[in-house]
């Protein structure tokens, strides 16, 4: 099978370049066959044998569509140029090939699963890309910045090298910030038996601490019985799931769930992050042998929906002007929260302008699947390949794009910046804080 001609600007990724030099063909063959034989099964064989190479998946892919229908970005090509070759050659491929596989699977595919919806056979192409990622990860062929976040997960159980004291100190600081709105507000640490354990992803204490202050206000106004852990296990994100280091993924997810079990809570409510929901709800539990999380996980969108529908949070003044929202793949296409997202957007915005296409058919922000964590070397092509979604945003005429997902948030900021859209990018909680009513007896 001839490789596809792919024209790309050279990218320097120190770790991938270094690994390319050190990998031997024996190592590669051994790892590929180990993964294929021990970690895949009928599912992969069925997908590979069922695909008729029709290419209909291409029409679903924002990489293909944003790059002037360049076939080298088509999902079917990504499969053809990676796992098919590995299977056909029974693992006898070289280091340059593995490097190209990592480039395709880690940096040019968001495993957003839109293509699978458009495949006439429903083939989950993203799954095949994750198998490629797994092989690459076991060969240590992972983009540098993505590997660094995985290393952080492995060493600290959070993705941003946040030290234990920094975590607790930040929560205590943000509790005070929340008290600026609601003087009696409390961010309860380590409260056994609370109804809710609230968990977030590493960037919140590192760069976006105000989100912790926001949730302190929201929880207190809504009268929730909640807690946050003062130990590792607070970070619900999981870059190892996407790099292909499933052992670290499982350890991180296990600790997250066991922290909730230790605190004897009834549910985990997680902040606005899509991939973290996927890791906590599906990938982590599946690897660990759980059908579903032992302590149920509720994504922020569903949580805010419940608070608004039940009247525990009331809206005092809706946000003015046109506002749109990105639909995070992992909570919308893969978990069906689209109508709840539209409900909460309409609840807090005077003029919610929906994206076209929307809901399960919405396009990825192109940061998902950890492509954004591949870091600065890969940013240019990532933003270039989000052209389609930039046009979709532009058509809404919105002044603000709401992103109930951290990867989406960073990715959409890059889109807004790269395509000079002149829009603000906000989390839903930031809008809610602006719009919600703080009852008089709780006010400062």
């Amino acid at each position, binding site marked *: 099978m001839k490789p596809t001609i792919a024209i790309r600007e050279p990218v320097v990724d120190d770790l991938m370049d270094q690994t390319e030099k050190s990998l031997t063909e024996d190592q590669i063959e051994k790892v590929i066959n180990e993964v294929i034989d021990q*970690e895949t099964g009928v599912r992969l064989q069925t997908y590979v044998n069922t695909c008729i190479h029709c290419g209909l998946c291409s029409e679903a892919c924002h990489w293909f569509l944003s790059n002037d229908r360049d076939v080298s970005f088509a999902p079917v090509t990504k499969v053809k140029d990676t796992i098919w070759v590995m299977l056909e050659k029974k693992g006898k491929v070289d280091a340059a090939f593995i490097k190209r596989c990592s480039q395709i699977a880690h940096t040019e595919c968001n495993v957003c699963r839109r293509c699978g919806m458009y495949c006439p056979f429903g083939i989950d192409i993203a799954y095949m890309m994750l198998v490629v990622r797994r092989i690459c990860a076991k060969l240590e062929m992972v983009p540098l*910045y993505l590997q660094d976040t995985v290393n952080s997960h492995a060493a600290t159980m959070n993705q941003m090298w946040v030290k234990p004291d920094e975590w607790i100190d930040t929560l205590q600081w943000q509790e005070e910030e929340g008290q600026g709105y609601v003087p009696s507000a409390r961010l309860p640490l380590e409260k056994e038996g609370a109804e809710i354990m609230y968990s977030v992803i590493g960037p919140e204490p590192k760069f976006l601490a105000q989100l912790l202050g926001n949730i302190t206000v929201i929880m207190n106004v809504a009268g929730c019985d909640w807690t946050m852990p003062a130990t590792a296990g607070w970070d619900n994100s999981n870059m190892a799931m996407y790099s292909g280091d499933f052992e670290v993924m499982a350890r991180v997810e296990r600790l997250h769930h066991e922290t909730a*079990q230790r605190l004897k809570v009834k549910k985990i409510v997680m902040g606005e992050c899509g991939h973290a929901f996927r890791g906590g709800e599906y990938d982590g539990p599946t690897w660990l042998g759980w059908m579903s999380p032992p302590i149920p996980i509720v994504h922020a969108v569903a949580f805010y929906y419940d608070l608004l529908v039940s009247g525990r949070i009331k809206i005092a003044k809706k946000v003015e002007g046109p506002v749109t929202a990105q639909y995070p793949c992992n909570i919308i296409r893969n978990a069906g929260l689209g109508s709840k997202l539209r409900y909460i957007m309409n609840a807090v915005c005077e003029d919610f302008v929906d994206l076209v296409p929307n809901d399960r058919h919405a396009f990825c922000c192109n940061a998902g699947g950890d492509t954004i964590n591949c870091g600065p070397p890969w940013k240019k092509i990532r933003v270039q390949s989000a052209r389609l979604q930039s046009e979709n945003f532009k058509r809404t005429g919105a002044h603000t794009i709401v992103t109930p997902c951290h990867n989406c948030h960073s990715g959409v900021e890059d889109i807004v910046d790269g395509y000079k859209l002149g829009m603000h990018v906000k989390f839903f909680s930031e809008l809610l804080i602006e719009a919600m009513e703080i009852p008089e007896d709780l006010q400062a």
Partner: protein
Amino acid sequence: MINSESWDWECNKKMVADTSKWKDQFEDVWEPYISSDGEKIASIVKVGEGEFNIAVNKETWGEEPFEKIWYSRFSPDGRLTALITKEMEWTMAVDGKTWEEMYEYIWDTKFSANGKVIAATTKQDGVYAITVDEKTWECPVKLESIASHIISPDGKTAVAIAQTVATAEADVNAFTKGAWSVIVNGKPWNDNYVDVYGLVISADGKNIAAEYRNSICEYGILVNGTPWNEKFGCTWEPVFNPTNSDEISVPVRQEGQWFLATNGRIVWDKGFVNLMYQTYSPDGSNIAAGVAPSFAKWTIAVNGQPWSTTFNECILKPSFSPDGRKVVAIAKDSGNWFLVVDGTVLGEGCDNVWPPAFSPNGDKVIYKIEKNGKFAVAVNGEVKDKEYEALWNPVVSPDGTKVMICGVKGGKYYRKVVLLSDI
């Protein structure tokens, strides 16, 4: 061990404190904790803007409030500890008296088994350490961070997983060479590792073990700094035999299945989808563990043999009765929590179940449950003592004839001792 023989084991019921009055007395009252003997109940209370104190029974910790207080916990010997701040510096307070030294930060309080030794992680001038009874480690290398720490039951050994090498941002090579190690009473082990997890100390305090990771799928076990020869695809935390500190058992993953290995050798020939929480019997002769014989079917295996009853959500760490004859575990199935003894489910499903206390011969398990927002005591699956707003784990007397039940009803905190035969 906690010496519970000196506790008041007379059969009686006494109201220790009317905690409902605290709500009128203070601006805010946090969740309460009680001492091991049940004689004291304490809550962090807000006494003014940026002013906190601790209420213990009918008193507070003196007149002078603190700027912040958190993590109030009773030591097993009955002393009340909390982490406090004064003029933006932190320290430990014990029964209201603060340690002399102040720190940039202090957290993760730990106690020896008898509660006489108190340790915590501290940070001062950017250097991390363990401080044991006010004495801070003087470590020959700068500790860049401390991930976790434990102390031996006798309190003589404090051990931490710490970062011993500073690494620059995204310096994956430095990370791969090993930047983490185990620090024992301030002295690092000779080698650094990519990652270290699952730190344990043997019951006699003589040996220390941990998991370590060399590369993406190469995990092993370290014992006193020496690695096992065997390597595995993944491991979970090791456990020492309580009667033989030279024996360590650990779940290990090979070719996609989990096995139990003892001292490097696989001892349970049957593999599982997952295997966790291995637990020795008190005499060290048997091992029980949580296992999934197939996907989403969880149970307990004793010496490798799974119970026939399985649960579709999860199972927690098992425990043995004092005589080692019975094994009990908390399991979740279809949204409900259950207590299970030797594979038999006791009673109805609950919203929460806590680990039980045993009668001496193991014929009774006494435990705390939660249902519909209220707490109760259950005995062998039968709900006996209901409608608590807060409840702590029942404790069986040293002679095995009585049980202490401590809980809050109608806003009042009660401690009562009843005959086991009467419950």
